[in-house]
């Protein structure tokens, strides 16, 4: 809605607010209070649903109020995403008034930070944030438009500003031609009157963002200046200011991710696992996933690009994820055998299907260029995104290797949120069921990882090379597990991460649950547990299926190869892993990741795209491609960093997802 509309008689009444809080009591209270202020309220207890609603129609809401502490996604992540994608004012809500948290909220872009219990007086003032922001945007737009005007001459820019309230560049462009003439006139008016002019918001769609990220990557994050980025992007009606502000956000995001990643890294280090960078990736993935939601297909290449470090990976994952979903448990089945009876995950085999074939996937990963330069992310080393395997659920039928010490994939918790997001998006995207399964994967895998394996991959971080990331990601693992079956599961010693991985993977793969577990894991990895360490088990027969679980989770769940790809990118190791994966599934995972990384990625991307379509169910081979694709999408940056670190690491997280489908 625009202020203009509301203005008039009702403002601030009629303000359209979206309230997000997982606590039903608080949510009801908030809703009632907001209604009392005469605002239009929409509520949801899930961040993912909220994002979906917001994405469906960016103009449907004026303001978002979100709780900080939510299970499916960190409130801060949601905040970032909303800020990046929709540019809506977001108010944080929390029971915790710690100044550090408040600061965090503000740095993430929150307009305000309220403490629970919320009082009606405070809510009565929230409309000010909306007006303030609109004014600022309008001014920016005007400036941009003004500047563009002379450039374009065709008044396209203007058209944008005026006609397209939505601010969708793409849309505007289309409409531009038609309204061009008219626009010119209107523009003039508009320019003169910024306050009344509707400021066309530039909507950073997935594609646009992808271009942006690609441009940034090309220039190098340090050297990326708005003007050059703008030139590289070559998007009409995009102004330097738009790019500049987006770049700023992006940088902030990267920084945050890197901090998180660093922390993760520490965690990982402690665990002994791979680098935290992985974690970052997860987070990135998380975002990525988000994007993927939009269209899994996109992920493939575009999505990756568009993902800003922040989590675009998630997007990437999506494609991969898609694949994953689709992967029937066929992949898992093989695993089943491999695994011990303990692995209850057999059922989970959902995702494994793809994995099993794994062998080919490995190649894909290799191809992945670790060119991701996520300097900031530093993924490379830590690809071991240590996502702690959530031991919580015992979906993880990891029992497989009993020896597995808690395989913790330290994927950065931060990533989890993203991952989660991703997961969902994927599901949403196109495969409702897959989404479901994806979720399963994520959760399952994670769970399986955690629970079953309790194997801590972390120590392994060191895992032998291959490990880099215990890609727990749900899907992959199971598949890998199946491979793992081949592996020596029994040797899950921490030192033998590989083995563990395989074993771990098995559980994951086995049960479709794995996938889901991954899901939770991924999502949750971020939270805590997932210490998935992506352990790229390359050589080990076990093949570290555990590819970046976190990533995977994100990816897997979503089916996005993206996330995986991301991880993969950085890690060539992933590729290795994938290669090594005996089970396709594994490779798949890795592939996902690696895919991102480079050319291989491309091919895989295509494959991944397939995933999207149908979760590549049979594409195992494509797995590699998936990864590639995802890799590409992921902005490579992320992935490469992650991948780099551990070349060995097979971040197959995505693979998991994808793998499953591979079957």
């Amino acid at each position: 809605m625009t202020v203009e509309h509301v203005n008039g008689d009702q403002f601030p009444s009629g303000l359209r607010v979206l309230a997000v809080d997982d606590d039903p009591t608080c949510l009801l209270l908030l809703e009632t209070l907001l209604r009392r202020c005469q605002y239009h309220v929409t509520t949801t207890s899930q961040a993912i649903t909220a994002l979906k609603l917001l994405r469906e129609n960016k103009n449907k809401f004026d303001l978002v109020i979100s709780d900080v502490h939510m299970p499916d996604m960190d409130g801060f992540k949601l905040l970032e995403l909303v800020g990046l994608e929709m540019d809506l004012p977001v108010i944080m809500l929390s029971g915790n008034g710690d100044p550090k948290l408040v600061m965090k909220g503000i740095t993430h872009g929150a307009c305000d930070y309220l403490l629970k219990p919320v009082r009606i007086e405070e809510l009565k003032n929230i409309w000010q944030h909306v007006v303030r922001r609109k004014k600022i945007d309008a001014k920016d737009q005007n400036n941009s438009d003004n500047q563009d005007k002379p450039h374009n001459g065709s008044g396209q820019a203007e058209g944008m500003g005026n006609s397209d309230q939505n601010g969708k560049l793409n849309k505007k462009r289309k409409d531009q031609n038609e309204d061009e003439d008219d626009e010119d006139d209107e523009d003039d008016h508009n320019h003169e009157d910024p306050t009344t002019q509707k400021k066309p918001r530039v909507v950073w769609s997935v594609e646009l963002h992808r271009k942006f990220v690609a441009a940034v990557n090309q220039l190098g994050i340090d050297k990326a200046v708005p003007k050059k980025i703008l030139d590289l992007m070559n998007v009409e009606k995009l102004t330097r200011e738009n790019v500049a502000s987006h770049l700023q956000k992006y940088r902030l995001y990267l920084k945050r991710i890197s901090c998180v990643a660093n922390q993760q890294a520490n965690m990982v280090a402690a665990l002994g696992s791979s680098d935290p960078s992985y974690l970052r990736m997860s987070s990135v993935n998380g975002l990525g996933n988000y994007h993927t939601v939009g269209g899994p297909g996109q992920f493939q290449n575009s999505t990756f690009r568009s993902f800003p470090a922040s989590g675009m990976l998630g997007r990437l994952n999506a494609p991969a994820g898609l694949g994953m979903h689709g992967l029937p448990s066929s992949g898992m089945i093989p695993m089943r055998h491999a695994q011990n009876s303990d692995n209850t995950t057999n059922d989970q085999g959902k995702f494994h299907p793809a994995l099993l074939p794994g062998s080919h996937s490995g190649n894909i990963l290799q191809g992945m260029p670790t060119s991701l330069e996520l300097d900031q992310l530093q993924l490379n080393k830590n690809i071991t995104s240590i996502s702690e395997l959530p031991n919580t659920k015992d979906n993880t039928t990891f029992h497989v290797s009993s020896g597995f010490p808690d395989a913790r994939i330290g994927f950065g918790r931060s990533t989890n949120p993203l991952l989660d997001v991703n997961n969902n998006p994927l599901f949403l995207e196109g495969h409702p069921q897959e989404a479901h399964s994806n979720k399963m994967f994520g959760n399952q895998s994670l769970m399986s990882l955690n629970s079953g394996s309790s194997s801590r991959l972390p120590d392994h971080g060191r895992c032998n090379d291959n490990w880099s990331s215990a890609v727990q990601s749900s899907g992959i693992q199971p598949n890998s597990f199946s491979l793992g079956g081949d592996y020596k599961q029994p040797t899950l010693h921490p030192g033998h991460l590989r083995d563990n991985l395989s074993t771990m993977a098995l559980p994951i793969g086995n049960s479709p649950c794995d996938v889901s577990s991954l899901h939770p894991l991924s999502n949750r990895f971020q939270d805590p547990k997932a210490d998935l360490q992506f352990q790229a088990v390359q050589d080990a027969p076990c093949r570290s299926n555990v590819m970046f679980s976190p990533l995977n989770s994100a990816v897997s769940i979503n089916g996005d190869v993206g996330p995986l790809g991301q991880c993969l990118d950085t890690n060539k190791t992933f590729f290795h892993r994938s290669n090594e994966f005996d089970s396709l599934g594994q490779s798949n995972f890795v592939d996902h990741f690696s895919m991102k990384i480079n050319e291989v990625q491309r091919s895989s991307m295509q494959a991944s795209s397939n995933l999207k379509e149908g979760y590549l169910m049979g594409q195992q081979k494509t797995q590699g491609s998936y990864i590639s694709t995802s890799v590409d999408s992921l902005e490579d940056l992320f992935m490469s960093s992650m991948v780099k670190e551990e070349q060995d690491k097979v971040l197959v997280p995505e693979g998991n997802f994808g793998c499953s489908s591979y079957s």
Partner: protein
Amino acid sequence: MDVVSQLQKQFIDFSSSLYREGYVDDQFSQLHKLQDESSPDFVVEVASLFFDDAEKLINSMARALEQPCVDFKQVDSHVHQLKGSSSSIGALRVKNVCIAFRSFCDAQNREGCMRCLQQVSHEYTMLKSKLQTLFRMEQQILAAGGSVPLE
């Protein structure tokens, strides 16, 4: 009417005691202010949600604490949520226990956590029964044709 007056008096006494004893605080009365024609059962609705949610959280906490290897973060997360919802409804005593509970979680003190869990469970049960009594009294007054006196 005598009956109504009596009921009303009982209600007021009981309600005051809840505040006095710290079972509920000012936030609870704020909730009443939000109740109107458009949402006549608002307080009861919120309270019901709270009960369901709290029970789930308490169970989750109990499960988490029973694990051989306790995940304190998870427990803390549940406690945090319970704290948030109890403060939203004005459940003062429950909230206070949650605060103490959190510090035990931070310290990763299992014994302390177990104790707090018991306490929180106890407080919650007490509160639930008190509120149910309160709501029942309100119903009785309304049934007798009277109106519920405001705080």
